């Protein structure tokens, strides 16, 4: 240190023989260590192990029997697995777009500077805070054919409602209604997105004579497209994993009308102890979600507009 004082050129301060740069590097790795370990064990390791399990028949207790592609060929031909694909896709492809539209409509309405905006926002958002079992319990009774809220309301206007959860035809629509009840979940994000659109864009459009509708399609939708994109991805991932309702409200019935992929996976693995087969289903579900996500990502180049991005 005393030597350094005498020199003109500054010398890097050294502590315990390591440069500042190297110390920062070590500190950085130490900081992210918890996540790194978790990632290696619970994500990377687990995924490899899971991929391996696809080729075995195992109950995890008595041993592993190699079956090659046995689980996969069995799965492709399994009518129940096919049924679960249909059920889950039906649920997802109806719920996600309607839910996006409702979330967007509510956000647009709330963004008009209405009185007590925060109050309305809270009311619409409330159902999304209470996910999981409690919501399933509540809706089980809402859908009760005789004393449930829905059929009683329908009867007031003279309609005899269906038997919802115990009807093969109406059980999935019941899940969809319940799913749509939570579509307020996207309004906070939509509102934030709407509020970040610069007002000068609307002013300029007004001067150019654009009406409300033109402004909506040519300014609001493009400027909000990254938010819509995000909600779409999250909606697809979430809806393909629909599980709690199916287990609690219908146990997959009636006649497997609500057998979702996740429920089938759970049944095969944790109820029938066929963990190899269950892993095969997990990977099938993973591939479906990945394919859909990639599809949306690829399509995003066409319809998602990022401010400041140069178009290729």
């Amino acid at each position: 240190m005393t030597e350094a004082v005498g020199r003109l050129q500054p010398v890097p301060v050294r502590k315990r023989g390591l440069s500042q740069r190297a110390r920062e590097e070590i500190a950085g790795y130490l900081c992210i260590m918890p996540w790194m370990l978790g990632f290696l064990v619970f994500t990377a390791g687990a995924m490899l192990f899971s991929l391996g399990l696809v080729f075995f028949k195992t109950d995890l207790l008595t041993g592993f029997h190699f079956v090659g592609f046995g689980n996969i060929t069995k799965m492709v031909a399994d009518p129940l697995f096919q049924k679960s694909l249909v059920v889950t896709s039906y649920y997802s492809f109806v719920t996600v777009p309607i839910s996006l539209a409702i979330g967007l409509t509510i956000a647009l309405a709330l963004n008009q500077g209405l009185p007590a905006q925060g109050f309305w926002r809270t009311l619409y958002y409330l159902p999304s805070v209470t996910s999981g079992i409690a919501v399933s319990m509540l809706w089980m009774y809402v859908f009760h054919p005789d004393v449930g809220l829905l059929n009683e309301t329908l009867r007031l206007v003279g309609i005899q409602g269906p038997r919802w959860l115990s009807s093969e035809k109406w059980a999935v629509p019941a899940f969809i209604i319940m799913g749509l009840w939570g579509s307020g979940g996207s309004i906070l994000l939509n509102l934030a997105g709407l509020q970040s659109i610069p007002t000068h864009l609307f002013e300029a459009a007004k001067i150019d004579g654009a009406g409300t509708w033109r402004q909506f399609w040519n300014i609001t939708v493009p400027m909000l497209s990254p938010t819509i994109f995000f909600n779409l991805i999250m909606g697809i991932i979430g809806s393909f994993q629909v599980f709690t309702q199916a287990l609690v409200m219908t146990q997959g019935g009636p006649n497997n009308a609500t057998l979702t992929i996740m429920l089938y996976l759970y049944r095969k693995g944790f109820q029938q102890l066929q963990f190899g087969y269950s892993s095969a289903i997990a990977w099938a579900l993973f591939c479906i979600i990945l394919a859909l996500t990639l599809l949306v990502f690829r399509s995003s180049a066409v319809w998602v507009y990022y401010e400041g991005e140069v178009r290729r």
Partner: protein
Amino acid sequence: MSIPTVMQRAVTGRAAVRKRHNVGAVIAKKASRLLLLVLVALGSVVFVTPFAWMVSSSVKSTEEVMRFPPVWIPSVIHLEHYIEPWHRLPFSLYYRNTLIVVAFNLVGTILSSSIVAYGFARLRFRGRNLLFLILLSTMMLPSQVTLVPTYYLFAKLGWVNSLKPLIIPVYFGSAFNIFLLRQFMMTVPLELDDAAKIDGCGFFSIYWRIIMPLAKAALGVIAIFQFTYDWNDFFNPLIYINSPHNFTIALGLRTLQSTLLYTPMQQVMAMTLVAMTPVLLVFILAQRYFIQGIVITGVKG
């Protein structure tokens, strides 16, 4: 809004014509806003009705539950539906277990996610961007692929049927919380770190003494998210816990509803409402944090 108004004033010749036109426009605008308000109010009724119905059902007599047309305000308030379930099932034990999980996980997520986020946000090391990209991609990864191996690992460790599988993973940080905190920490000026370094602070004391106090708001956000997640979580307890003395409230509710017990609807509604209340209260009271957290992560995503 302001530019057209300015232009209107500038074109004084047409002012009279404009004014007559404006009266009509103002009325139309007022009417459409009123209509919008009515629609928004009606829509919110649809969203809130199931809650209201749950409250109403939980205090009805059996006769009134069955009655048509439905009674919204029961003639006698039957509060015993809120007491009876506690004799049927050990709900205080379920709540105690849930609170243990929540308490450990709040500490766990705040400590682990913040230190990892600090590393990613403030320190330079080789491979940082690549590792962060991997972290982001794990947020997209549906958990069912890792479910069976994780179960196998916990079974081998002898943790199945204890609260450990619900707690220990949280201490490795969650990708979402790390991402949220990292976005927040990026906004803290780097000059603070430099000043602290000159004062002789090491990296860990910068984390603990400077970044953590500044990140209080963001830590509040992740605490709320973690609380909501653990309180509502049904899947993990379902997978890992079999014996009733380790049940969380989510499993307790399901047991109450199971066909073997023949629990009356009013009691199920009452206990569901009780179970929902903490999360609803936390959301209503801490809404500002909720919104902040969603904005920090969402808009960037």
